[in-house]
């Protein structure tokens, strides 16, 4: 079931198109990432979802129909621009916000107290917001968006301003929420978080949809079809002889798909002739020479652990390369490299900017 369906929505402010012809849908029980650079139109899109502003054209359905008051009560919202009543007591404010979602006063009070307890803020319940630290205020703000246990939570940049511990708390909450069958829409520009949290994403740039689909599919689609290999006898303590280092690593840059699923490692480009295997020196690396169907081998180092990235030629099977490797070295790790969401994002947005 689609919790949110957006069809061909456009919006302009004062003659400038902020959102142009965007369509997507959010399914029940998923964490949906709404990604995009600053000023891409994410917040406008969210405000239209919540019926705070109306689209110029297109259609938005939430819970299967255009948003009605009962529907609004089933949504929780954490806006990017944070704000709380500064002079009101925590509990009173939370109860008021819950009551605005048609939760009875008694129920609202119970929810508020149990949520405050679960975030370790119960002892502060009688304080005014202005007496709290900034981090605590952020947690309260998050809490206020789920005070009525909504079926759909819309979180606009939920991690901004949070310390690592609070970030983890909020992250765990979000996952917990999804596992309970609720739906989460998460807007962020921090791609690492989107990659680990989101099931599906929509990338918006300058008001247009540039990427849309499940995180796994998008990464596979954009994959360079390279393989990451770690093997015994290569790596620890063995300095690279090719003048490796930052320059070389960044020189090959994003275009060569240097990053891996683990993040960006340092690497040294080893351009080898087609089908020739690995090129110059390196005792350990020489064993990889001559594997048929390999176009290029790139060395990487990450936290003093070395591994190689193998780029097979088109038409060479992964299986064949693995067999060849197993014959030559003791393979410790063998996996398909996928570009990080971060790389895909930057690449897409830059490509879009050059158009």
């Amino acid at each position: 079931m689609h919790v949110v369906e957006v069809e061909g929505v456009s919006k302009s402010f004062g003659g400038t198109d902020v959102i142009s012809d965007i369509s997507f849908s959010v399914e029940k029980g998923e964490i949906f990432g709404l990604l995009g650079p600053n000023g891409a139109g994410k917040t406008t899109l969210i405000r239209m979802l919540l019926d705070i502003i109306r689209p110029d054209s297109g259609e938005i359905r939430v819970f299967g129909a255009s948003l009605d008051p009962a529907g609004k009560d089933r949504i929780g919202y954490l806006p990017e621009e944070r704000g709380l009543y500064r002079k009101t007591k925590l509990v009173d404010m939370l109860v008021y916000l819950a009551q605005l979602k048609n939760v009875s006063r008694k129920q609202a009070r119970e929810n508020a107290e149990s949520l405050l307890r679960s975030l370790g803020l119960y002892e502060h319940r009688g304080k005014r917001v202005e007496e709290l630290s900034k981090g605590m205020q952020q947690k309260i703000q998050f809490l206020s968006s789920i005070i009525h246990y909504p079926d759909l939570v819309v979180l606009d940049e939920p991690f901004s301003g949070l310390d690592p511990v609070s970030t983890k708390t909020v992250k765990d909450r979000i996952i917990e929420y999804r596992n309970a069958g609720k739906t989460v829409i998460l807007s962020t520009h921090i791609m690492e978080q989107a990659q680990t949290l989101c099931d599906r994403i929509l990338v918006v740039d300058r008001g247009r949809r540039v990427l849309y689909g499940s995180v796994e599919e998008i990464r596979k689609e954009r994959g360079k079809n390279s393989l990451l290999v770690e093997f015994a006898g290569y790596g620890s303590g063995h300095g690279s002889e090719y003048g490796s280092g930052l320059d070389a690593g960044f020189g090959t840059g994003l275009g060569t798909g240097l990053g891996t699923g683990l993040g960006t490692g340092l690497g040294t480009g080893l351009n080898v002739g087609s089908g020739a295997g690995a090129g110059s020196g390196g005792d350990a690396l020489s064993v990889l020479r001559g594997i048929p169907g390999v176009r290029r081998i790139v060395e990487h180092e990450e936290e003093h652990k070395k591994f190689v990235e193998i780029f097979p030629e088109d038409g060479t099977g992964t299986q064949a390369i693995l067999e060849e490797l197993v014959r030559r070295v003791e393979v410790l790790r063998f996996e398909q490299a996928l570009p990080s969401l971060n790389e895909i994002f930057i690449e897409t947005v830059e490509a879009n900017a050059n158009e």
Partner: protein
Amino acid sequence: MSKFSGKAFTVARHEFLKTVKRKEFLFMTFIFPVFLAGITLVPALLAGMTPSEDQSVGYVDITGSFDFPEEVTDGGFAVGPFGEKSSTIEFVRYEDNPEASRALRAGEISSYLLIPEGFLETGVIELYVSEKGVTVPRANLAADLSDIVVTSLLQDEVDEAVLVRVKDPVNIKMFDIGEGGEANEQGVADILGDLGLPFLTAFLLFFSIFSASGFLLRGVSEEKENRVIEVLLSSATPTELLTGKVLGLGAVGLLQIVVWISAVALGASYALPLSLDPFLLFLAVVYFLFGYLFFASLMAAVGAMTSSLQESQQVAGIFTFAAAAPLVFMQLLLTKPDSLLAISLSLFPITSPVAMLVRIGATEVPFYQIAASLFILMISIHGVIIFSSRLFRAYLLMYGKRPALREILRNMREG
């Protein structure tokens, strides 16, 4: 303001409780009347408590033709139930200036008078007081002296009745001619009741309308400034928010004006022999409600359009100034309540609540005029609310530069 929903009620109750607990509200509602009462009553109280100022005044009569009594006693004037105080001046005769001067320096007298040779031509009497511990000559010393002079000069020349008339030539008594031609004497209390109370009621009305709609303005600007508004808008519609706020703060204002008017009624019956016309009170409440609705809706739109409290108060100041016009024209409203300007002020929606109340106090306002002013006010309220809720929706989430007039007009039309 279409349908009244549960959320509007939630907003109203929240706004009411929040505002009633504010220190500013408690101060304005309960301390302000006490303060006002203090201003009017304290001087009277003080006058009542200070001991009567009996003085010894010396005199040197060089002309030798005046007949000073041993002492004169004046009835003092005091407001309210504190009774009258009398004070006495004792006159002591001295033969010449140096002798009187010595007595003054010795502290036997507080001051002395010198009636010089040419008094009959110049009319000048000299008053000498001590350099230290200046004694303020009593206000009615001149009146006392002129009585003495008149008596001395005319006592044997004219009849007793003429003498009295010369001392106290004219007294005016005021009468009302009623519908049937019967004349009613007006006392001080009536004049105060007719002029003072309308002024006071109008003043309080003005204050309560603006303190309540001021709370609304503050509330909207604050929510906009601290960005709570976006969360609120994700829960309730702009109309629900606007309705809730207007109702909740209207209740606050009503509470305030009820407290104030009770204080006035109580104070009036205590300090002055007055009773307030219940019809005037009723109209005061009606005009409060209408005036408040009108200004509150205006303020809500102002609060929504501006991006900080300070800015919003500047813009709102324009309206407040316009609404204060009846207070500026108060004298005209009281003395010529049936003039064209007075009638216009009591019909024009921004000024009508205050102006009409003053006129009702000052004159018999024809019923059709009251009806017309209420009708015009109602139509205006309707219009303002429609435009305000459109602007409210359009501008609540906009920050930054103040919108241009043309853009505002466009948003009013489009909604």
